[in-house]
């Protein structure tokens, strides 16, 4: 039995990697980014899979065992709120605590005037990003961590100890989870490592979106300098978590750096010039990056097309996947494109028809991975996920 699983794992890994290299595998790989859907399927609440990572892992394994998927993210409900609560993180609404137990966790962006980084702090961030994060940012985002000069506290001291131990515990558990996925269901762990764009992370966690779009007009040189200072650190973090075998890509989560959140001019001035060298360096070292293009990034396909052939896997969310295929399909593997609204409100026949349309339109020469448009939450119907899976297996054979 163990040998069969190893053989299955090998076949799936080959299929998945072949498609990601924009080549033609034996069949269209299936790699759904299933998050709270796993809880629904396995019989857990959102609170359980968000706050107890062992239940999240168990739910992911159950889905992997029951559906014929080539690869999954080991835990797509990635934010373990047991850890964030231990360190007093302020920017989450946690299921079962701040929101009902069957609602997925939410990010809370503070009001512009309460941003975690002030407009006049760019120089401090640029000079010493790591020091700034520890000394300025962390005390602001944590209810327990005291700022420099403030009286310390029992809870301040415990925050670092508990946070560090919890993070070690969580990250160590991924190794076990990946092995269990491999041995129990022959499933590949879909990504390794994390990347965010310098521009995006300033909006997400430091200045907030409104603060940043003001800053690009009022202090553009300081924004650019901060992005440049973040670049080597974000590259380092991406490399430190990347797949040592260089099979699976680094996950790159794209947020609000695209039109219309920012203008094309600002994309070209801030977002892209401070991201592209990171992608090129990763590729130079043999690591693909999975562009998880949340929303619609088709206005920037021309820019992405300037990357070396095969450097990225491009995931399509709400954008037109056929337009993306036409623009960059010769250079990069695409994934996604099956609308989440269809998976939630459509019929199984409608899902099958959409899968056929996407496979016919973009998968003819390989270089396509079946997936929903966005991360699959608990509103998706089980029968529709099953229809997406089974149809792709039957129809997506080369």
């Amino acid at each position, binding site marked *: 039995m163990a040998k069969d699983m190893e053989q299955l794992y090998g076949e799936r890994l080959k299929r998945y990697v072949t498609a990601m290299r924009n080549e033609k595998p034996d069949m269209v790989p299936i790699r759904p980014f299933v998050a709270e859907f796993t809880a629904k399927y396995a019989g857990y609440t959102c609170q359980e899979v968000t706050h107890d990572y062992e239940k999240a892992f168990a739910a992911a394994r159950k889905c992997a065992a029951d559906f014929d998927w080539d690869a999954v993210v080991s835990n797509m409900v990635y934010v373990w709120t047991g850890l964030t609560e231990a360190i007093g993180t302020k920017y989450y609404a946690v299921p079962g605590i701040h929101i009902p137990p069957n609602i997925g966790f939410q990010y809370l962006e503070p009001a512009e005037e309460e941003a975690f980084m002030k407009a006049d702090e760019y120089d401090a961030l640029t000079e010493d990003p790591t020091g700034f994060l520890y000394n300025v940012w962390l005390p602001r985002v944590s209810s327990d961590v005291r700022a420099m000069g403030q009286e310390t506290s029992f809870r301040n001291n415990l925050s670092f100890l508990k946070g560090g131990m919890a993070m070690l515990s969580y990250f160590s558990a991924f190794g076990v989870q990946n092995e269990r996925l491999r041995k129990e269901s022959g499933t590949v762990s879909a990504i390794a490592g994390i990347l965010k764009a310098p521009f995006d992370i300033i909006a997400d966690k430091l200045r907030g979106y409104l603060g940043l779009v003001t800053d690009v007009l009022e202090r553009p040189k300081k924004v650019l300098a901060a992005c440049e*200072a973040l670049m080597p650190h974000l590259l380092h973090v991406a490399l430190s978590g990347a797949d040592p075998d260089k099979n699976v890509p680094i996950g790159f989560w794209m947020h609000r750096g695209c039109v219309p959140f920012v203008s094309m001019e600002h994309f070209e001035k801030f977002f892209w010039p401070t991201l592209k060298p990171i992608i090129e360096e990763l590729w130079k070292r043999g690591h693909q990056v999975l562009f998880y293009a949340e929303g619609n990034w088709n206005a920037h396909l021309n820019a992405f097309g300037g990357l070396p052939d095969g450097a990225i896997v491009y995931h399509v969310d709400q954008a037109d996947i056929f337009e993306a295929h036409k623009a960059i399909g010769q250079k990069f593997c695409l994934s996604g494109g099956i609308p989440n609204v269809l998976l939630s409100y459509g019929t199984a026949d409608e899902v099958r028809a959409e899968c056929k349309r996407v496979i016919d339109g973009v998968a003819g020469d390989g270089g396509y991975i079946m997936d929903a448009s966005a991360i699959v939450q608990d509103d998706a119907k089980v029968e529709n996920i099953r229809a997406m899976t089974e149809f792709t297996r039957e129809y997506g054979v080369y």
Partner: protein
Amino acid sequence: MVEMRETKRKPGVCIPWEEKLEELPEITGDKELVKKVWEDVDALGYVYIWQCLLSF
């Protein structure tokens, strides 16, 4: 295209070995061992804050 900017603390480092070395008495044993273990454990502190920023 822009260049990556050097920062006060290099990627992967919170407290550089050179800074720690100045605080230590003369190392009579294996200096490289002390350096390696210092840097390996120091890197965990780096992982902590950057993962807090990026992942959590």
